[in-house]
């Protein structure tokens, strides 16, 4: 009965009703009557087919288990039939766990001729797992060596291929010594090496084994499988053995070519599981080196390798270090995130800290470990490397491409850590004054965005001054790139601050005022260079876009980043944006002014509530400045009174006399969302849609109800910034002013 069920099991998974092995066993325990019944109907046809033609797997297994004497295949049609049953089941759906012990025993005990044994071994395709017991039994058969050399080899190849399917490996590990003894067999040696490579743990590395391997090496010369095993030994016990591998070698073990891999994959795919096949071989050489370099030209980021030095130290503590089994996890073996989580408490940083840059897992680990020496090691290494390879500082020009990618690597690491490296900061401070603004431009500007927040005097002389020089003398595209990178810098500072405020709320007093000053300085700096740049570039729309993009972060500092600081854009930015010919800029400005309003209102409310004693208060000047800008904006967009009512000292206000000299008719009515140069195009289209027959384009028609339609039209054209601005800053007066506008018209 038991056998019957088990032979059913793989069929079930074949049908796709049970996705994984755990489901399968649950079904078995629970009896699974319902599903069995329902399936039996479907399957009966199939079953009969198999049974009649080739015999079932269960019959085959029981036959093979009981057969006593050596039987020749040719004369025995029963054996033939059963063999066929095993093979076809294996290829179709894989073998159930129970089958392995019987088949392995038969194949390795030498009962049959090699052709039969080969066929049996070749059909050992697991449907789910290979039970450890069956492998242990097989190894014991291997040891009595009743089977031929070819079968032994084939078994080893199979074992390597299905290694990851073996359900447990503890007992297998206990057989390490047995496997090791097979190394002496010349034919088996490569495969045994591979198997040992998969099995070896630190405690397996013993001086006598090292000596045996070295003797083998002396006998057989340089063999890739020995190299691989020895380098693994070196990984665990660098104080006992060492080896240097050339970087050229691609794979150290031949793929144990056998019939299984393809079949397993096919079975797995049919059973809807993914194959855990093909273990990556991790050897300490990784890092292919592009070309031969001087040893101390360090642009080659070191490969991750275990810290020899630390291992020794640990060993000394245990005082019997040659035989210690301390479980520090070699970083070379760290390949996956779950591995990192499992081993995080006995993981050590690699011997050269620089290697973490290319290893995201170790960067994550670095984030968890707050040890100053880690940063110091990285600092020294990175500092030397940046200086040595800097393409515009070193006379005999090193390779720009490599330097570029190195900078990019640093930047990516900084993004992952959400933190700038101090070596990188110092490098920028040192070399920005010498930079031509061309070499590695995008990489350098990216790195600028991760300069840590530090004292304002440093930043001014080392960052702002050289940047300003380059900014004013370079193309508009470069100007935009700098603005972009300063925006990133501001955002990084603000983000860091938010995190820090969460962590150490108590020390807020000391840090916050410093932070506010440094941030304010950056915003003022950008305001200044933006004003100048707009003049230099004739109020370029493109440039304006990047400037306003910067202010999109500035206007939200209070609400979004909890920083008690709001700085209005200078008039040199505000007015060109307000009078821009481009609706994108105007729309952006509207959005920004809306956010300023939201932030100022929030601040005012907090102030009024006085629940918290506020250490920082926005000065009245900020409110006044905002109000002046708002008056100008409302005048420009709504009431057509910008020229009369603007009270900003650098604003649009003009004498009536002067205005009348412009000879524009109905001055008091000629500058609002209808006539604004950035919106004129919309009003024209609007008129054409509203009254397609009227070709005179009578803008005065846009009033009253049509005014509202026009607004809706503008919003529907994607001017969302305008929408939120008008709804927040004008809506309350809109009724009155519209009727007023209507009156004037009427």
């Amino acid at each position, binding site marked *: 009965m038991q056998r019957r069920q088990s032979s059913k099991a793989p069929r079930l998974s074949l049908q796709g009703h049970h996705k994984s092995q755990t489901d399968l066993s649950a079904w078995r325990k629970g009896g699974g009557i319902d599903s069995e019944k329902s399936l039996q109907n479907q399957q009966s046809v199939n079953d009969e087919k198999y049974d009649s033609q080739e015999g079932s797997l269960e019959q085959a297994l029981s036959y093979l288990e009981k057969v006593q004497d050596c039987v020749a295949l040719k004369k025995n049609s029963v054996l033939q039939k059963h063999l066929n049953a095993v093979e076809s089941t294996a290829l179709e759906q894989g073998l159930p766990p129970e089958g392995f012990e019987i088949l392995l025993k038969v194949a390795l005990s030498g009962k049959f001729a090699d052709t039969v044994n080969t066929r049996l071994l070749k059909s050992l395709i697991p449907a789910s797992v290979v039970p450890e017991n069956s492998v242990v039994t097989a190894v014991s058969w291997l040891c009595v060596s009743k089977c031929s050399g070819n079968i032994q080899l084939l078994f080893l190849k199979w074992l390597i291929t299905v290694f990851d399917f073996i359900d447990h490996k503890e007992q297998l590990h206990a057989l390490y010594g047995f496997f090791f003894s097979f190394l002496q067999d010349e034919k088996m040696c490569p495969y045994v090496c591979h198997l040992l490579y998969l099995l070896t743990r630190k405690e397996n590395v013993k001086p006598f084994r*090292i000596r045996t391997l070295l003797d083998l090496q002396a006998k057989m010369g340089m063999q890739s499988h*020995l190299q691989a095993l020895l380098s693994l030994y070196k990984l665990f016990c660098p104080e006992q053995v060492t*080896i*240097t591998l050339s970087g050229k070698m691609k794979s150290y073990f031949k793929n144990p070519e056998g019939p299984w891999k393809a079949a397993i994959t096919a079975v797995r795919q049919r059973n809807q599981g993914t194959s855990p096949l093909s273990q990556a071989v991790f050897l300490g050489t990784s890092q292919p080196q592009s070309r031969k370099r001087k040893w101390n030209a360090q642009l080659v980021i070191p490969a991750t390798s275990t810290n020899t*030095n630390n291992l020794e*130290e640990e060993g000394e503590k245990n005082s019997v270090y040659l035989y210690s089994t301390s479980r520090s996890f070699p970083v070379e073996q760290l390949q996956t995130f779950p591995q990192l989580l499992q081993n995080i408490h006995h993981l050590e940083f690699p*011997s*050269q800290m620089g290697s973490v840059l290319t290893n995201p897992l170790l960067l994550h680990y670095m984030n968890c470990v707050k040890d100053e020496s880690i940063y110091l090691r990285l600092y*020294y290494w990175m500092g030397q*490397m940046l200086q040595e390879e800097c393409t515009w500082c070193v006379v005999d020009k090193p390779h720009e491409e490599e330097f570029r990618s190195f900078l990019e690597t640093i930047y990516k690491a900084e993004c992952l850590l959400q933190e700038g490296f101090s070596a990188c900061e110092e490098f920028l401070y040192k070399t920005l004054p010498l930079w031509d603004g061309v070499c590695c431009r995008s990489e350098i500007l990216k790195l600028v965005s991760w300069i840590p927040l530090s004292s304002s005097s440093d930043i001014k002389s080392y960052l702002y001054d050289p940047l300003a020089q380059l900014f004013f003398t370079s193309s508009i595209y470069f100007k935009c790139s700098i603005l972009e990178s300063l925006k990133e810098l501001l955002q990084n500072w603000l983000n860091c601050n938010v995190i820090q405020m969460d962590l150490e709320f108590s020390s807020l007093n000391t840090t916050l005022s410093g932070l506010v000053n440094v941030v304010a300085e950056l915003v003022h700096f950008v305001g200044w260079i933006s004003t100048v740049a707009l003049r230099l570039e004739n109020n370029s729309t493109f440039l304006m876009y990047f400037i306003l993009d910067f202010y999109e972060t500035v206007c939200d500092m209070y609400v979004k980043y909890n920083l008690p600081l709001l700085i209005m854009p200078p008039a040199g930015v505000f007015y060109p944006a307000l009078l821009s010919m481009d609706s994108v800029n105007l729309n952006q400005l509207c959005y920004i002014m809306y956010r300023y309003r939201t932030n100022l209102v929030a601040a005012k409310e907090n102030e009024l509530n006085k629940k918290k004693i506020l250490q920082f208060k926005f000065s009245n000047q900020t409110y006044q400045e905002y109000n002046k800008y708002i008056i100008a904006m409302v005048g420009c967009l709504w009431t057509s009174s910008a020229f009369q009512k603007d009270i900003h000292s650098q604003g649009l206000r003009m004498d009536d006399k002067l205005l009348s000299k412009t000879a524009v008719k109905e001055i008091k009515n000629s500058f609002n969302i209808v006539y604004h140069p950035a919106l004129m195009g919309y009003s024209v289209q609007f008129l054409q849609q509203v009254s397609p027959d009227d070709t005179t384009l009578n803008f005065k028609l846009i009033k009253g109800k049509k005014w509202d339609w026009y607004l809706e039209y503008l919003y529907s054209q994607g001017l969302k910034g305008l929408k939120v601005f008008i709804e927040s800053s004008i809506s309350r007066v809109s009724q009155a002013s519209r009727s007023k506008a209507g009156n004037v018209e009427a």
Partner: protein
Amino acid sequence: VVASLRQHTNNQERQNFNLSFHAHRAGILDTVDAQKIAFLLRKAWTLYSVTPLFRFHRARLTEYARLLSAFIAAEKRKGLAVEVGVELDIKVALTSLADLRGSELDQAALLVQLSSRSQASSRNSEDKLVWSGWFCSMFGDDFSENVLEDFTCLPLFLSHGAESYTTLVGSWFQKTFDCCFRRLAISPLNLSWMVAMWAGCKLDRAASAVELVFSVPCLSQPLDISYAIHPEDAKALWDTVQKTPGEITQEEVDVFMDCLYAHFHRHFKIHLSATKLVKVSTAVASAHCDGIVKILHSQYLPGVLMLLTELAISQIQ
């Protein structure tokens, strides 16, 4: 075409001054094994700066020597494993030069020597020294003070012997102690400091000439100008320039060099200030801008090393 122009300075500006060179601290070396010091002298050493060594333990020097020797063997027979601790072709010795340091805060210097075992001949025959290098710190106090406990500051490294061995030893140190080696070039400005300082040193023996080598830039073919000065003349000139004994200022160095340039121009109508100073040699030491130094006089060893330590530190900071 290499033009070599030699001219001795006149004795015109000679005055008698007693010079005490600020970096000169006679007495430090009294206790050092004279043999070891002699070994360091009169060899051309290539200079490197080294960032602090992480987890370097002086008690483990023999262990390090075993590992380094196995490492060298493994690198040489690329692909073949080497057992650590067995006799190998290249023997490594690591020794502390306990007294070779400036202050208490300095780490003692560390000497690395590679010797090849004589194979064919008798066992008695001595191993042949094939390469040597040493780490040192001479009054690098400010730097060492600010470094964490796990780090050892030996910022100056000097090597002598085949470059291939420097590569091997350097990479092993880099891998094992997570440090960085960088060639330490000497700028013309620092070379002029050296010549001014060293020209003013008092020496008992009959000293060799002070020689400066200049290279003329922007020529299709290299042109070097060698300018040799009688040591007494150089000292006399320096003595007139230096205002406070025991102290040297940039201004004094500039004046000293300008005097030499002016003299040269008077005779040869060549402005040396437009060329690049590439090498200086005096009775105390000689130094090449590529970062190669030869120290000639044990009395001034600490002084020279102090200056080089300073240069090395400024390169790593």
